[in-house]
């Protein structure tokens, strides 16, 4: 209550007033998101084919605490030929029983739906994915006036992943990537193909027996 205290207080508010504001005018200006910001779940594109890397193991719908993910798994009965050059609409492609990534794949999804009204962005699906097909993208503007649009299908999910990768590459341009730690196995995403194909296979079969909803 001393005089200098009063002067200090008044000067503080005055200084703050003429100083800069911290508000980001959101719809006009976007604030830079943190690198690990958790937006909607997206498919990381395959480095070669540009399509999703999902092998249909069924772990993500299994672990999802709010049942936001619904997938349909189909067994591969292909002829063993390489079909990676071909492009068809995903649904038909999978319905024909052809794997876009690798013709030797045993299982894959022919639909993959995420209900964004349920998703709580915990990231468990991303962590559990054995082939690093999923990523928490930076997509968060999901407001819509149509309830059906809140259920994201494969195209949308892959598109979000691609956008995320593009942003990430732009941000990481010129940044040196540290070498892998000794003794650590190479991440599956750094390979064209997951190193251990058998594991998700056997796992998915086990889940397929228990989890009827994930293998419609």
């Amino acid at each position: 209550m001393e005089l200098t205290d009063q002067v200090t207080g008044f000067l503080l508010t005055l200084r703050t007033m003429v100083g800069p504001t911290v508000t980001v005018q959101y719809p006009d200006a976007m604030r830079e998101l943190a690198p690990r910001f958790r937006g909607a779940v997206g498919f990381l594109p395959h480095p070669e084919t540009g399509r999703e890397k999902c092998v249909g193991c069924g772990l993500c719908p299994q672990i999802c605490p709010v049942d936001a993910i619904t997938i349909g798994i189909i067994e591969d009965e292909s002829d063993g030929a390489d079909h990676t050059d071909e492009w068809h609409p995903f649904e038909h492609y999978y319905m024909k029983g052809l794997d876009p990534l690798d013709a030797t794949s045993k299982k894959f999804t022919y639909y993959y739906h995420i209900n964004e009204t349920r998703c709580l962005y915990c990231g468990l699906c991303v962590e559990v994915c054995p082939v690093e097909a999923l990523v928490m993208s930076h997509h968060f503007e999901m407001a819509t006036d149509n309830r059906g649009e809140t259920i994201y299908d494969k195209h949308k999910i892959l598109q979000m992943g691609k956008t995320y990768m593009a942003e990430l590459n732009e941000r990481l341009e010129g940044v040196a990537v540290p070498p892998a730690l000794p003794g650590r196995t190479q991440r599956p995403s750094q390979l064209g193909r997951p190193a251990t194909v058998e594991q998700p296979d056997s796992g998915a079969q086990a889940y397929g027996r228990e989890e009827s909803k994930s293998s419609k």
Partner: protein
Amino acid sequence: MDTFDWVWVLIRIIVASVILTIVLVTMGFLTYFERKVAAHMQQRQGPNRTGPLGLLQWVADAVKLIHKEEIIPAGADRAIFWLAPMLSMLTASAAYAFIPFGEHIELFGRSIPYYISDTPVGILALLAFSSLGVYGLIMGSWSSNNKYSLLGGLRSSAQVISYEVTMGISLIGPLLLAQSLNLNDIARAQGGSLVTGFTGSLLNTPGVWFILLQPVAFLTYLTSAIAETNRTPFDLPEAESELVGGYHVEFAAMHFGLYFLAEYINMITVSAIATYCFLGGWQGPFGAAFGPLWFIIKMAGFIFFYYWLRWTVPRFRYDQLMGICWKVMLPLALVNILLVAIMRTGVALIQPDIPPLALGNLGVTWPWLVFIAIQLVFAVIVVVGASRATVGSWWGKSDRPRVGDPRSLTTTLDGDTPRRVELRPGL
């Protein structure tokens, strides 16, 4: 009386409607500026969506308030509930009949006044209307049939009645110096600006702004004017954190809007009085032609100070509020009157035809200089004394935690002696 001047009547009507319109629009912009100032003092941006820079925000607010449903509580006294906000608004806006925005301007061979009425008792009428405003608050709070409203009304009546006294007594000093109750005369008595001096002041008046001759009265007036308009830090009648909203808890839509309007208009009124009695009114460095401009600039300074104060100082406790009024402000104002009366008489005795300070040379006007010197010493003693009195000692350092002192945040023990963290008693 066969040549009744219809044009004169017409001019008066036009001037009155223009002034009323300006006041209402200004009030709208004042809410906008308050929000802007508040926002920037909190590192926000404030309204910036409605219109360019958000300048139309007040229009949107007004339209919303007018379109809302007016809810009258079941237990309310309907007639008084209806009447109270209107009374508040009416008394607030009626004060503008007595506030001159300048002298007059020569247009089309006629002298067009910058005021509605130039009554010889202008300042008395202003004080009367500003004290009538509290009836709107009391009636509204009583008729709401709500305990929070009633508490707000009680506080408001006590506060306004107390500070009315201090406010009136602080104004006696400038009035003694100007020897008039007419606001235009008071402005004329203050000569011109501090820079250029004389622009037509009367003989035997100081001829400089009264803030130099009446610094203590200025401080007491400023404080009591803030209390009079129920602004922070004296906004106990509203006190959102204690009384929800105080007297206007039950009021919705334009009923509330009228109270809101009245508060801002009262703010302009007390700023206008302060401008006239202490800062020379419409006097400016370039003569009286730009009178309204200078007047409005000075008033805007006061209003900005209101905003600044609101976002800097927290609310007073109720007993502190009353203590400051009756134990500090009132004695100070009384001592000030005594001083002014003695010195004004002394000045007149020494030199009956003393010219205004800005007009005559300093050798002739030395009594005014002595007057100013004594008043400034008085002001310094008051300010430093108030500061040291709250600390508890005139020369030593304060025992109490100060701003930025880590002690003010901790209640640790020093050895075996617990540090006493006591509430400061009311002044």
